């Protein structure tokens, strides 16, 4: 049944599916995991770094990109589609600033990206963008925001979310562990993001990339050493928790 209705994006199937959009969501699952956490005074984006070929320049393989000074996003899915969407969003951020003399709100730019994606699900001869994005930032009112968009063009605000390969496992971990205590301080929020990624990242801290935005501060990308420090701290805490457990049972 599906093969009759999945060639043209503008065609609904009899049971109301837009198969091309659903297939685009499968393309997102082929990208590596990205996790976003909204803390009290910080927003965190963590991604699983792809293994870079020996001769490839690592700096040109980025999953986390700044859209403006106060907004950044991580994506999962088709690299080329992401580049196009990011370029359009960046232009829109500057255009907005020049037109209304105010920087974009996180919700505005998310809505822009989502509208762009939706247009491509209703156009003849085009296919949907094969990416999901996690957009984070602070608005002028100082409130931290995290939004997620998907290939169908929907967007929602989240407290914490994951996209890409094994996103479900990470989301389940976040549902269990995202508590008021867990995001009480900036460090705790960062550790939560790393812990969530370690659930699915196969080779530990050296394959994790992290970025944060603090209120009224620009985007900060963590170096590999800084990530390693957090990973070591997490491992220590784990060991201590296990020691306590074994003491209790004795």
């Amino acid at each position: 049944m599906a093969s009759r209705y999945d060639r043209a994006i503008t065609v609904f199937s009899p049971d109301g599916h837009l198969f091309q959009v659903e297939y685009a969501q499968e393309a997102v699952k082929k990208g590596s995991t990205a996790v976003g956490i909204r803390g009290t005074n910080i927003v965190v984006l963590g991604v699983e770094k792809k293994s870079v070929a020996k001769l490839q320049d690592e700096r040109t393989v980025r999953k986390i990109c700044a859209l403006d000074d106060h907004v950044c996003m991580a994506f999962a899915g088709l690299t080329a589609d992401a580049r196009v969407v990011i370029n359009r969003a960046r232009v829109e951020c500057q255009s907005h600033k020049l037109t209304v003399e105010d920087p974009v709100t996180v919700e505005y730019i998310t809505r822009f990206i989502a509208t762009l994606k939706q247009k491509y699900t209703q156009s003849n001869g085009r296919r949907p963008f094969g990416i999901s994005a996690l957009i984070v930032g602070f608005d002028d009112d100082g409130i931290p925001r995290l939004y997620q968009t998907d290939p169908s063009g929907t967007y929602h605000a989240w407290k914490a979310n994951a996209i890409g390969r094994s996103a479900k496992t990470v989301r389940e971990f976040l549902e269990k562990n995202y508590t008021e205590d867990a995001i009480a301080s900036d460090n705790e929020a960062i550790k939560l993001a790393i812990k969530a990624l370690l659930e699915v990242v196969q080779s530990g801290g050296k394959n994790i990339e992290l970025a944060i935005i603090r209120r009224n501060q620009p985007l900060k990308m963590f170096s590999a050493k800084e990530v390693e420090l957090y990973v070591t701290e997490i491992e220590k805490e784990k060991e201590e928790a296990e020691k306590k457990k074994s003491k209790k049972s004795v």
Partner: protein
Amino acid sequence: MAATFFGEVVKAPCRAGTEDEEEEEEGRRETPEDREVRQQLARKREVRLLRRQTKTSLEVSLLEKYPCSKFIIAIGNNAVAFLSSFVMNSGVWEEVGCAKLWNEWCRTADTTHLSSTEAFCGFYHLKSNPSVFLCQCSCYVAEDQQYQWLEKVFGSCPRKNMQITILTCRHVTDYKTLESTGSLPSPFLKALKTQNFKDPACCPLLEQPNIVHDLPAAVLSYCQVWKIPAILYLCYTDVMKLDLITVEAFKPILSTRSLKGLVKNIPQSTEILKKLMTTNEIQSNIYT
């Protein structure tokens, strides 16, 4: 015949046969060249089972030559990685032979200098208990080759006092269910067993209308016909390439009778599995 809105002409399926059957008959008569090409192709697509040391073909089928009480078959790269890390590292396994085949999708490589991405099909038995067999099959066996594979491995009159366990993976979008695939807890395990398999499965059985395909289906059908107890553990996953979470989804099988006693050190196996993942990462720039 019906035309659709976009101009594509869709042929309506008809069981009575096509109208222009007579014309097709004329074109179908074989010339000697056609016969020659067909024979060459058949020879190329032959499945050969080779002995390990001498690299000569086995005269009889594998299980006619060696007695077997337990046979574990892993089909697909995730199932193969599971057996490699959890079972093959917990004992001394000796290679008894390998299958060589060619089809449009793959050509099997030599098992001596295998790179992790190459397709192969090897057979091993446990040194301490040579009636326990294991098969690692990471190549695609085409429909016309499945029967040959079965004949070369099981033979035309197999013994019934052995137990077969098959492990394989399938993409979750193949799983037919009322729920949407987004809400399924993939990866998840389903089992399908033959009538003579009396032990309980460690996971729910595969529900209708889902079916099994390819070599796992061929082996199960063969076992059902010959009344051999066999069970297939099918892992539905959304990551078909080598993936840690998919491989770990097979873990419940470690507690079943089929694999009990064959697995010793689970934490060490997990470490070996992690190493296997990192060495196998194929570079691709399409998805980030």
